[in-house]
């Protein structure tokens, strides 16, 4: 953690992690929507595989 020399650096790291985390959640939500839109047969196949 030698790069994190001040409170500001820690805050910056946290902010960037928050951005990435938030967009990762949004991307997961998109995947969830895709699964909700799949026809039931395809969804069943996907679960079985």
């Amino acid at each position: 953690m030698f790069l994190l020399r001040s409170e500001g650096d820690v805050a910056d790291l946290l902010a960037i992690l928050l951005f990435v985390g938030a967009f990762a959640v949004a991307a997961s939500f998109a995947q969830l929507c895709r699964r909700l839109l799949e026809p039931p047969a395809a969804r069943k196949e996907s679960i079985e595989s």
Partner: protein
Amino acid sequence: MSWQGWLQDIIFVVAVLAAVKPLGGYMERVFAGGPTFFKRLLGWFEALLYRLSGVDPGVEQSWLEYAGSLLAFNLVGMVALYGLQRLQGMLPLNPQHFPAMAADLSLNTAVSFTSNTSWQSYGGETTASNFTQMAGISVQSFLSAATGIVVAVALIRGFARRSVTEIGNFWSDMTRCSLYVLLPICVAATILFVWEGVPETLSAFQAVDTLEGGKQTIAYGPVASQEAIKLLSSDGGGFFNANSAHPFENPTAFTNLIEVGLIFLIGAGLTNMFGRMTGRPREGWALLAAMGILFACGTIAVSRVEAQGNPAMAALGVNQTTNATQAGGNMEGKEVRFGIGGSSLFATVTTDSSSGAVDAMHDSFMPLSGGVLMANMMLDEVIVGGVGSGLFSMLLFAIVAIFIAGLMVGRTPEYLGKKIEADEVKMAMLALLFVPAATLGLTAVACVLAPGIAGISNAGPHGFSEILYAYTSAAATNGSAFAGLDANTPFYNLTLSLAMFVGRYFVIVPVLAVAGSLAAKRIAPTSRGTLPTDGLLFIGFLLGVIVLVGGLTFFPALSLGPIAEHFLMQSGRLY
């Protein structure tokens, strides 16, 4: 309100309506990749951008790929804007030597401008360098507006296409929207603003001696160019803290009219583009008519309430009538040069759209007017709305309306020849429910936690309205503030960021899913049993669904805030 105020409203409506057809036709050509004057002028630059980025505009994407590209692009934009604010002390074009903005404030601002909200917990002239304003905030105003527009375009393609999985190419849509739609209008508007006296300079602030012998610093900068995209993009983030109430952002009644016109311009034009792309122009006019009815209701209500003035002032014998020497009505928080008419129109337009620019302080409006402004945002940006987001939100309501109509008559619902089935309704309801969930949930949290209560300046229902307005504005990606709320605290910066993020991306993703689902369907021929969706009956039904689904969700919250305050004011209690 004076007759000049009503005349101004009429001129505004006529001017916007006059622009709808030509702009709709032009945007249709742009997104189809057709020939336009600006394509001949800037086509080489578009091709260069594709070559540099390795994008093939001819390769289209599925809705999931489109959403992935959009999310990745917005993530990069958010991180870049955050970095600019944190590093502005070391970057050029900082004549006032502003230091880095605080981390929580930078985070809030980055989310705010990338999500097309423009909630500002800072005063631009005291916090942000010219470089941050130009390369960060203004650039994101362009890109976030383009993001909203291309999502609407993708959804329209979903309706217009048949039996395909692709809904367009995100990268080429973004490039064409920025280069051929936003940029030309902004250049023209910037020149107009400069002509009217809005500054456009990179010089340091001017220190002057006042007539009283004191010293004053006059702040200015590249205001005109930021002003143009601020309004056109329905972003609304001002160069100055006072936003469009500042004489350098909005110097005259003429610029005031131009500004409200710019806010509605693209949103209204998109309805026409929708009609053209689907091959059913009347459908576009039907949507615009529904928007227009809601706009007229809000504008007339706010104008009337503000013109009547404050009954507590009347009880003290204050003359609030409109006459040759005074504007009359409730002039608290309003600019004298705009009066009741200009302020009421601006406030309604800015909350109908997702703009958030203000030329008067909404906190000082009468309680019922404040309630109307909140209700405008709570209806999910369907009254013309944000650029793109207004149209796609309206189309979501149309899907829900047609579904309910289908249930009532026992037929499979169809809209524009596409069967509306469980998939589309699930996605539409997801998109429509995230905004109230974020708004009401976070308002409730702020009302019970100490850091939330610490931010309000007024007791009673007015204090509640300050909190409710902030989260409504954030989740609706509007960005206007009620004032009176000290929002530049870690609590509000973080929770408002969450509301903005959810209100933007958790709506866009299901909208793109609907686009993909619709594009894969066949277009059924119109039969005798098809419900016409371009007539008065459907417009009325659509309005009913918007008010019931969108508005009533918030009615209990409005009762605790502006409605309670109105009745308490009638009994002589003020907050």
